[in-house]
């Protein structure tokens, strides 16, 4: 366990260090997420009521698309100069490579989402001040499971030619329980449903997170060994 945590910390710190230096993922995935939300707001702007109804969907579309891009880029770093081969040969538990990469990507995705959230609120004229904490919590829970599963499939992309196509084609169907629960929970909260009545959705998201993380920890090693 100690080795797992040590390895996870070293890998996550490496991810953050490279990103702080290059800002490659935050800029590309962040701009992509913003583009999706801005274009959608222009395309679907009808009236205030319709905008408010569209906002949860746009927020999750922007977040999930930016997330796919972030996960793909995070693993592209491992392909370059075949760094993953060197990493797999080190004595740290291989699960710690998965966890470290997942935590690093999760941080990038959360930073992007925390920008997307107010942008969606402004563009779709939704006053989220009262529900901001709850919406942020839903986003955090939904994106944690999404990144957990996405990190696993993005890792597989290191060894396949289809790469980005495979991440999207496999990840979206498998993440649909979490994404759907996230969209519906956000819609309910912004629609004025009391927090108590959204707890069931939060439980689904929590279960989605647990399944994603456990699947990643269990499947990463066999998937990375040919």
């Amino acid at each position, binding site marked *: 366990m100690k080795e797992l945590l040590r390895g996870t910390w*070293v890998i996550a710190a490496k991810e953050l260090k490279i990103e702080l230096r290059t800002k490659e993922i935050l800029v590309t995935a962040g701009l992509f997420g913003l583009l999706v939300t801005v274009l959608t707001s222009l395309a679907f702007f009808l009236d205030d009521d319709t905008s408010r109804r569209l906002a949860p969907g746009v927020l999750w579309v922007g977040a999930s698309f930016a997330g796919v891009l972030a996960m793909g880029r995070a693993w592209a770093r491992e392909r370059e100069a*075949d760094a993953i081969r060197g990493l797999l040969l080190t004595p740290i538990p291989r699960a710690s490579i998965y966890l470290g990469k997942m935590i690093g990507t999760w941080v990038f995705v959360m930073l992007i989402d925390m920008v997307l959230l107010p942008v969606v609120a402004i563009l779709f004229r939704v006053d989220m001040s009262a529900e901001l904490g709850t919406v942020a919590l839903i986003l955090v829970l939904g994106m944690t499971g999404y990144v957990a599963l996405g990190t696993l499939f993005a890792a597989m992309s290191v060894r396949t030619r289809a790469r980005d196509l495979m991440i999207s084609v496999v990840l979206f169907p498998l993440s649909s329980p979490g994404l759907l629960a996230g969209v519906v929970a956000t819609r309910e909260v912004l629609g004025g449903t009391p927090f108590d009545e959204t707890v069931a959705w939060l439980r689904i998201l929590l279960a989605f997170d647990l399944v994603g993380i456990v699947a990643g920890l269990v499947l990463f090693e066999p998937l990375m060994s040919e």
Partner: protein
Amino acid sequence: MEFDRVEVKGLVKVYGATRALIGVDATFDAGAVTVIEGPNGSGKSTLLNILGQLVRPTRGEVRYGELGVVNKGAVRGAIGILAHAAMVYPDLSARENLALYARLYGLRDPAAVLERSIARFEIGRWGERPSRTYSRGQLQRLALARALIHEPTLLLLDEPSTGLDVKGVRRLVETVAAERERGAIVALITHDPKLADELADTTVKLKRGKVVS
């Protein structure tokens, strides 16, 4: 040294309809360089990747001396690999890459190990720049430092001289010879007959996945 011999017995590796290795037996001893020869597609890299626990054999076993047949961090931590690709992060400097690997290998006093490694491979001020800016020769020095930072018991070399100039090949030969002197088990794949002649203590010849001599 964690083990003094690596033995492979009845190694078979099948990829779909392709049989990359068919019943390979071989022994790799400490303090010796074993050159793995053979034409393209003969299974050399597959054998090396199985030795390095990067690929699982379909059948057969690899015994790491007294440690036996294991697939654990303890064995991985005793293996170093050097190939054409440097296996480093292009956005990190040589110093940062080596510090990362020192931490990943859990080395005691990583700062001292880092300084020794930088001195041994003459990584100068250029080592402060991101490694994507390095020449092939500089990148090779970093790759050597990375592969050897933990003084591996088993050193795997997969066509390490590709793209190197005369000076780079000379440095490679001297480094491999020094590792042999230290008592490391060295397995080398090369298509360079001069390099093979200079370094080989024993040879394993592969053809279509089988050992032919």
